[in-house]
């Protein structure tokens, strides 16, 4: 396999349009990051990100380019770190562009505590968080729902959790879509999905999901940090999780639906996982309504977990619950109907972000009023041993990449290789020396998530910062990580 690649600017590489490609592929990276992607192709690795970016460029109705961020790595169908925006009239919607964990995302809470305030009490706080936050395979949530009540969660999202005592109205103000997307129809979600999901609202899950207590280690943009309410040394909490089994089942159910639809509408498919349906078709619309249900389920999930975090801080440290506020909550596995300018003309697009964070710039009505002068916060999760970043969206990002930025560090080693190279116990002991407490439900999951299995998050974030599509506001470092 050969894939032509040319550098078009300091931080942008392009796969030129050729063959069945309708648009070019465009990757935001630096020379080191791009080398890794090219090496995969040269080594003959069948599952490589560049081929996936090229395949997405062939899907009907794609606009501008098949895009990828600096944290891009091989996924299934779409690469992880990929963006595919399709014309709402002529384009398609795809399961692979969303993934099986619909609206997996990050919520960051800001406390009024500093790192010094919790010194010596970290273990107590870790123990309490581990006790209070349901995590790991088979865990159940503390919000007890009947099977029929789940429909209400799917329609109301985080608002349902707030109405039932998990948080406050202010939390919703600082969530993407105010914690609830419109157009969610529970009838498009199967009984199996609801049966799998109704006891899991407010659970962390496993794999790369986590709850992390962090402290702000560096501020890059004083003005933006002030607007977001962030200060040096401040204790933050970041929660990374999604829509749990309900979302997984939505993906599974619609993969079949869209496979039939691909044949029915004669859509050329270069890779079987890229099955899709025209967005305006009956199948496409049904899937979109189901995704909206999944998005709301994930919002409700993070809302409950956010509130349980407050409870844990209150009981471990006596922190006032009201002093822990939501900084922002944003998804990175979604397909959303958005307005963007293409060739100077405003268009309705169905924007797939698979492992990519929406990063809307200043002035967009979707950004909370308090942040609108700066642009939305972009929450970038690092690894349990390195750092996380808070960025803000920019006008340039709106023009070039549909208002999108990186979502994390991006994996560089496979899970299998990570397990061979590291042991969970050793990772925990090593991080303890650096003052980081890991409380995990699975030792092998800790090994798979070893910091060394990821790219350098600073290098990845610097690419989007230097390219100007999102700008650095602050960096935070981990103190405690609760793993599923």
């Amino acid at each position, binding site marked *: 396999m050969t894939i032509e690649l040319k550098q078009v600017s300091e931080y942008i590489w392009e796969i030129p349009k050729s063959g069945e490609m309708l648009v070019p592929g465009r990757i935001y990276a630096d020379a080191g990051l791009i080398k890794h992607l090219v090496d995969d192709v040269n080594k003959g690795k069948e599952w490589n990100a560049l081929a996936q970016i090229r395949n997405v460029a062939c899907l009907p109705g794609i606009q501008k380019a098949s895009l990828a961020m600096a944290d891009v790595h*091989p996924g299934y169908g779409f690469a992880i770190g990929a963006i595919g925006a399709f014309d709402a009239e002529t384009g398609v919607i795809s399961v692979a562009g969303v993934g099986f964990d619909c609206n997996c995302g990050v919520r960051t809470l800001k406390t009024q505590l500093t790192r010094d305030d919790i010194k010596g009490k970290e273990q107590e706080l870790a123990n309490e968080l581990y006790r209070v936050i349901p995590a790991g*395979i088979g865990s159940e949530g503390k919000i007890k729902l009947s099977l029929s009540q789940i429909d209400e969660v799917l329609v109301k999202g985080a608002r349902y959790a707030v109405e039932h005592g998990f948080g406050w109205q202010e939390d919703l103000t600082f969530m993407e879509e105010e914690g609830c997307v419109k157009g969610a129809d529970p009838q498009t979600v199967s009984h199996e999905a609801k049966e799998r999901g109704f006891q899991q609202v407010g659970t962390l899950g496993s794999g790369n999901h986590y709850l992390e207590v962090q402290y702000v280690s560096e501020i890059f943009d004083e003005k933006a940090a002030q607007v977001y309410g962030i200060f040096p040394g401040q204790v933050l909490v970041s929660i990374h999780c999604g829509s749990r089994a309900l979302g997984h089942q939505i993906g599974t159910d619609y993969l079949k639906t869209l496979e039939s639809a691909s044949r029915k509408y004669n859509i050329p498919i270069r890779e079987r*996982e890229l099955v899709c349906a025209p967005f305006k078709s009956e199948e496409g619309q049904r899937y979109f309504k189901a995704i909206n249900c999944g998005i709301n389920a994930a919002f409700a999930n993070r809302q409950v977990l956010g509130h349980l975090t407050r409870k844990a801080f209150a009981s471990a440290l006596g922190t006032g619950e009201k002093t822990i506020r939501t900084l922002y909550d944003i998804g990175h596995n979604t397909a959303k109907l958005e307005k963007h300018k293409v060739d100077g003309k405003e268009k309705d697009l169905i924007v797939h972000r698979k492992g990519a964070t929406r990063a809307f710039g200043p002035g967009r009505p979707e950004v909370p009023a308090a942040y609108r002068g700066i642009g939305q916060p972009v929450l970038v999760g690092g690894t349990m041993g390195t750092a996380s970043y808070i960025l803000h969206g920019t006008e340039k990002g709106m023009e070039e990449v549909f208002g999108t930025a990186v979502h994390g560090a991006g*994996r560089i080693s*496979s*899970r299998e290789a990570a397990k061979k190279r590291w042991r969970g116990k050793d990772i925990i002991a090593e991080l303890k020396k650096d003052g980081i407490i890991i409380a995990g439900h699975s030792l092998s999951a800790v090994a*798979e998530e070893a910091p060394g299995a990821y790219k350098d998050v600073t290098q990845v974030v610097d690419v989007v910062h230097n390219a100007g599509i999102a700008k650095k506001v602050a960096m935070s470092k981990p103190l405690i990580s609760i793993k599923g």
Partner: protein
Amino acid sequence: MPYQFLDHEADIGIRVWDKTLEKAFAQGGKALFDIMVDIKKVKKVSSVDISCEARDIPALFVEWLNHLITQASIKKMVFRDFKVTSIEPFGYDLYKLKGTASGEKLSPKKHTLKVEPKAATYFGLKYEFKDGNHYLQCVIDV
């Protein structure tokens, strides 16, 4: 062990094989639950019947794995033994599968949790018959 895990950065590829197609599918079940728990620690206490259909053999493999994930999740179980009793063509473009999965209620303390499989995907999906064995592979999202 007639299955192996394949390198994939974010997820896990599985490749399974056996002398008959039915047995190869059963190996797929083992590989799937080996991702989730230490299957050697799972006992055979009860069984769940699985039936599913798809338009070709590779898609049927994904369907079978996804049915196992769904049933385990709904019944809060984990499986260790799999028997595929029949895989038969039905009409012009449909294959039907009947089988069972045996295991017990999931116990985080007892089963040594690993990572939760979210879904079997069509990515990397392959079916081939060579040297007397049926080989199947796909990527599992975790």
